[in-house]
């Protein structure tokens, strides 16, 4: 039986902590599961990879890559993964597919477009449907990223969209790269109007397109300057052979991470994640019992910063009155 082979969550968590990449798929099977005993095991798994258990934040760089459909995210990821692999860094990609339908089913085709060597055991790709939540991450994606961050050197969360999902991805990733193609006027407007938060890194793809690319690049720089975000890196890349700008982009992502107060960003991510899960489970009434979102977040920041998300969530439930 496959379910029996999944083993218990604690064991899988330990294997991930020991950087055993073959545990990744079974770990995600558990984390994605809504069955109640699986959820218990997932909680045990996440506790094993929490900062408390690891003795610090998980070592991976969690990179969010987001952008509108068709801008070349998959080609870009193919090249980026190639770059990271050439540095002997293991990579996990969590591809969140927006194509969720009334039937509940989805077609997940993204992994095909990310070219990798199928025999390379240090690249792991998992696709998930965004589920019923609007424009956001799949419910289990944050937990998946937290778990895989213990085992892999780089964890990528890939989402589709612009304007809504950046905030959520920013709460899950250390570094967020928004990907654009030449002549993306609407995105520029979003940026200028403040509808969209300024990402950590902006990537302009298809720079082989020439004049359009040069113009868009100039527009982007001007917009960032006007927003007072002139230190946001803008990287121009071309993913068709001969690929250009990939090394520079990988370096820019790395540079952002070095500048970052990583523990603080991760703690904030865990607090928001716990609060989000709590809100999904207990609704507005639950949030009111905590004195509202802002109060709850403030309270969470006083808790042990190294706790895993399920434990933070449990603390919230207790504070809200043990009910549900």
């Amino acid at each position, binding site marked *: *039986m*496959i*379910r029996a*082979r999944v083993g218990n969550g604690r064991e899988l968590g330990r294997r991930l902590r020991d950087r055993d990449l*073959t545990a*990744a*798929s*079974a770990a*995600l*099977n558990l984390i*994605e*599961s*809504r*069955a109640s005993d*699986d959820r218990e095991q997932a909680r045990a798994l996440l506790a094993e990879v929490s900062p408390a258990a690891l003795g610090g934040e998980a070592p991976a760089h969690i990179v969010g890559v987001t952008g509108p459909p068709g801008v070349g995210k998959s080609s870009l990821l193919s090249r980026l993964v190639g770059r990271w692999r050439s540095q002997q860094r293991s990579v996990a990609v969590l591809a969140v597919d927006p*194509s969720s*339908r*009334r*039937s*509940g*089913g*989805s*077609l*997940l*085709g993204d*992994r*095909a*477009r990310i*070219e990798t060597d*199928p*025999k390379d055991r240090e690249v*792991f*790709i*998992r*696709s*998930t*449907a965004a589920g019923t939540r609007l424009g956001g991450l799949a419910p289990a994606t944050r937990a998946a990223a937290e778990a895989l961050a213990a085992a892999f050197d780089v964890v990528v969360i890939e989402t589709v969209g612009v304007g809504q999902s950046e905030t959520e991805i920013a709460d899950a990733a250390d570094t967020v790269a928004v990907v654009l193609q030449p002549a993306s006027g609407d995105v520029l407007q979003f940026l200028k109007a403040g509808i969209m938060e300024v990402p950590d890194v902006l990537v302009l793809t298809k720079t082989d397109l020439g004049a359009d690319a040069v113009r868009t690049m100039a527009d982007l720089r001007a917009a960032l300057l006007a927003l007072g975000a002139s230190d946001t890196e803008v990287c121009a890349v071309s993913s*068709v*052979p001969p690929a250009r700008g990939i090394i520079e982009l990988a370096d820019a992502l790395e540079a952002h991470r070095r500048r970052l107060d990583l523990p603080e960003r991760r703690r904030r991510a865990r607090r928001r994640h716990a609060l989000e899960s709590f809100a999904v489970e207990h609704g507005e009434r639950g949030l009111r019992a905590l004195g509202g979102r802002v109060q709850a977040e403030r309270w969470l920041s006083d808790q042990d910063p190294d706790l895993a998300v399920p434990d933070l969530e449990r603390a919230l439930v207790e504070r809200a009155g043990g009910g549900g």
Partner: protein
Amino acid sequence: MVLTIPTEFWFTGIEPALRRHLKGFIQSGPMPEPPSHRLPEPDRPWMMRTYAGHSDARRSNELYRKNLEKGQTGLSIAFDLPTQTGYDPDHELAKGEVGKVGVSIAHKGDMETLLDGIPLDQMNTSMTINATAAWLLALYIVAAENQDPPAPEDKLQGTTQNDILKEYLSRGTYAFPPGPSMRLIADTIAYTVEHVPKWNPINICSYHLQEAGATPVQEIAFTMSNAIAVLDAVKQRVPQELMGSVFGRISFFVNAGVRFIEEHAKLRAMAILWDELGRERYGVEDEKHRRLRYGVQVNSLGLTEAQPENNVYRIALEALAVTLGRNVRARAIQLPAWNEALGLPRPWDQQWSLRLQQILAYETDLLEYPDIFEGSKVMDGLVSELLEGAREEMHRVAELGGAVEAVDYMKAALVESHRRRWQRIESGDQIAVGMNKFTSTEPSPLTAGADGGILVVDPEVEAERTHAVQQWRAERDQAAVDAALSQLAEIAQNDSENIMPATIAAARAGATTGEWAQTLREVFGEYRAPTGVGEAVAVGNEDLAEVREEVERISEALGRRLKFLVGKPGLDGHSNGAEQIAVRARDAGMDVVYEGIRLTPSQIATSAAQEGVHVIGLSILSGSHRELIPAVMDALREAGAEDVPVVVGGIIPEADAASLREAGVAAVYTPKDWNLNGMMRDIISLVAERHGVQSAVGA
């Protein structure tokens, strides 16, 4: 007295006014006016071909000579998938596919053997070759110049299919991204117009669009849009004064389904649009250059595995669609065999189809009359209906930036049409005799023989070919090959150069198909075409609602949504079936991982393991299931996913199905399993059983 004027003089050398005068003079000549309902002399029959080739060059050459003896008047070469996609027989991706759906041709030596004893200055050869068309044309030119006596390139007649857009849309044997592929097409056209003037460098295909589910309107519109994309690309690469000849050399490869009246109207509509395009968009003045010329292979999609003998009638009726009306009669015809839904046709099956053509041409009175539909209200009405729809659809494609830019749109539209067709068959709205109606039958004596009524390719062929190509490489002048390939790479990088001369030089030097393609892959990059499944509209009917509920129930019990991997291993690009399964599974509520065509067994196994799927469905239509399915099972074991149940679908003879089940495959589906909801039920109960969950449905 007939006035003879050299053609080239006639078209270019004479002052237009004088030409009009001469034309009038000839028309008012002493010839008596024939009665308008009869031709003064019966027309010559169209060119008769059989799409043929298998195993290696020697065996296929024998087959061609026999076919010509039987009265076939042209050759139609079927290449195997490695040759079509640019891999040598010893490449990893060629495994299981060598010599299967056509002949394996790796170098000029193979091409010479293939055409041995067939004088190429007299033969008319059609080659079904696309991504590697420039290369196979080069091999053909070199083989011709090495014949005794040599056949110079300006004497060669024939066709290279060379239509890449429909490969992205339907057939799947592409190798390079759209931009460089369009350049290869434009280069072959530019080269042949100048050096191989009797060659049809491209056959723009509506055929495969219909096989992928296109409605007549889509078939017309997408094909014409495709032609525009090609012509626009060529326009950049030839002088304007040659555009008339270019336009005149473009031919089509069409399909004809069993609704033969409407199918005929479709061809008349295409002829009108083509003439219009030539005149208005490309300024082609000569009316002859604007005439629609096409070859045809009639529909295979509608051929059934159930009561396969009925297919003979279907094929005959479909042949009428392309022969009845003289104004748009096919120039060349090849007919499928009655047993295509069962496996590969044998020489006898192909002979039976050739005889059909010969009866139509030589026994009936078809060729004695002028166009029999002229003045028909029904026909004119149908044509204008189709024209209206096609123009609208062409406009949509143009708005998206033309056919190259609109590949995603067109692919999704085809998947959607095919889904509707399938749904009509399932609901019984569309009748397929012997399949969803009138199903009670006597056993067919045609399939009772020891071979099951199909051709089985000798399994030794792959090893033989692997050895032969390695020997070829060892014995040739390696320095000459290296030099030719590095020259080719250099030319490829320079977009303003024509790729053909360097390609012909590489063919002469003895380079292989795989080396030519690999050189270009390194310069151009590789490509994955859109799958088109994401945009297909969700269906809803009661039967599916029931399946959906069961998916919900099982998913709840599993803890996760039922996740299903649909995979196409090997080089087979016929993805229509796999796409329909993927779309239906999604509509049934499953999470479906579908990655498109051309996956190696290890890619499929890796995906299955990493994605944590509950079940795997594999589709193969090229006959390579005997090699590839066990290879996938091995790879699954290696990836630690051996517990995931596997089902297989494709053109799979019963004897093979049994051995696949023995190898651990949970279920085998063939074209007679047309009920997709039934298949979904099977898959759900299979997963339920493996996970110890009670299932309420079941086969």
